[in-house]
């Protein structure tokens, strides 16, 4: 107990406390770390910072596309795998492959497939379609990362859906069959309503996860957020300010802003799920 408490204190609680203090300072980390008090200025600065606006816009766009798509895909796959179909264990294991693979490797494989000489362009050429410089185009770069993450995360949520489906009482379906309900009716009137709390949970987990996008953007753009800021995310921006511009106070303020957004989403989920329990 004591060692756990010590480590938690030094590496979890103290940092949270420090983050709040740092956000009011100008912190210069080279050599002997120097601190200058700046009051609320780090926070005001965000509002006029063009790069914060771009990073937020990219991140929100990313969340808005990835979360619904991966949730739907996970639900579809889980529904299909929940039928009396042969070989479902094989498919379950196979689908999970991208989820266990590191984001660094996935990003490299995707970059390779999308490079001008890569699999994607070969495939298009075989079909007689025009090939394209996918990686260099700002309007495509973020979409490629979106696709990759949907593909890598959906199986994780699929497993949660599958587990939730095991809890639906079989008697409900039997009763529905006696009443002459079709497979479609059962899906709409039994399965989906039953899965509603899980769906909400999965959406919230999805939002929290996607707001923290970093690895893929970093590896894809070599830390720059390019081409033309198209892959700049909030966490990448925090990294850049803290470790490239060496402006750690401002970066801490940005991190607090991100934490605030994520905590609000989490709180909404907690409240929602508690209400579900009372009903």
């Amino acid at each position, binding site marked *: 107990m004591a060692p756990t408490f010590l*480590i938690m204190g030094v*590496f979890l609680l103290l940092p949270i406390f*420090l983050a709040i203090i*740092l956000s009011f300072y100008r912190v210069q980390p080279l050599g002997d770390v120097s601190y200058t008090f700046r009051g609320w200025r780090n926070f005001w600065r965000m509002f006029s910072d063009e790069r914060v606006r771009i990073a937020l816009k990219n991140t929100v766009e990313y969340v808005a596309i990835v979360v619904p798509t991966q949730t739907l895909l996970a639900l579809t796959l889980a529904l299909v795998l929940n039928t009396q179909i042969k070989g479902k264990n094989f498919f379950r294991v196979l689908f999970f492959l991208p989820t266990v693979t590191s984001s660094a490797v996935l990003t490299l494989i995707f970059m390779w497939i999308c490079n001008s000489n890569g699999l994607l362009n070969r495939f298009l050429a075989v079909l007689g379609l025009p090939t394209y410089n996918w990686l260099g185009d700002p309007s495509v770069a973020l979409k490629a990362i979106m696709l990759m993450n949907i593909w890598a995360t959906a199986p*994780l949520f699929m497993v949660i859906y599958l587990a939730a489906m095991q809890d639906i009482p079989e008697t409900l379906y039997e009763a529905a069959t006696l009443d002459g309900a079709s497979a479609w009716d*059962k899906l709409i009137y039994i399965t989906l309503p039953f899965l509603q709390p899980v769906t909400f949970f999965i959406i919230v987990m999805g939002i929290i996860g996607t707001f923290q996008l970093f690895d893929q953007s970093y590896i894809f753009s070599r830390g720059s957020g390019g081409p033309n800021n198209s892959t700049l995310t909030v966490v990448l921006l925090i990294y850049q300010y803290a470790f490239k511009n060496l402006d750690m106070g401002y970066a801490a303020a940005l991190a607090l802003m991100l934490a605030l957004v994520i905590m609000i989403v989490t709180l909404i989920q907690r409240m929602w799920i508690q209400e579900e329990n009372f009903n």
Partner: protein
Amino acid sequence: MLEKASWLTPVLYVILILYAILTFVPFAWALSASFKPLSEIVSGADGLIPQQFTLENYQQIFIQEPLFGRWLFNSIFVAVCVTLGNLIFNSMAGYALARIRFPGNQIFFFLILAVLMVPGQVTLIPTFLILKSLGWLNSYQGLIVPSIVNATFIFMMRQFFINFPKELEEAAALDGLGYLETFFQIVLPLAKPALAAQAIFIFMGSWNNFLTPLLILSETEMFTLPLGLNTFKGQYISYWNYIMAASMMFTLPALLIYAFFNRYFIRGVTFTGSKG
């Protein structure tokens, strides 16, 4: 559960097989490229089976890139230490929270819930500064110690132990076993499934972690594989054969562990997932 309608089954198989192809092709392609000479990859004559099968790519990454072996060692060493630490500390803390009435029990529990809510990015910069002032940047302890406890899994273990039958421990107490003996001899062996799920998650998390090592490591000798791979990509920018061989060396251990512990992994997803 959907009905087994005769027209539906083929449709379901089509969906499953299409998605299986979508999942599998990138990996198969990467694996096959790791056994091809660069000329074959660039020439465009590339089926899944290499025309000129070669191990040269793998020799290259280990011989020409002497640090690759070191990165592999660093990754394994750090992931193993972090996993063992988490197993011991999270379980003990979770057990204490579930069973032992000690002063501050409630406060500690609420602190864990609070920490659970705060995203990791908040602690990045302060942790960096703390490690710097300890002189732990570029060190194994800097990589290991801060991630040796995990609030999520303390919480998970607490939930596990709360549902644990008390009678066994009471019997152990009658036999004169102390807290520690009861914990290590009676409780822990019965918690194996929860421990296995936790071990896999922590190991994978550490093995694949990119951001933390990126911040606290600057000497290439200390790099873990994700960072090494990133550097590697920078050096061999269009040598996709080497990059894919290195990627496969990085993926293989994770895949083996996953294949071996698949059951626990999926149980862990649902355990941490649907109960959170």
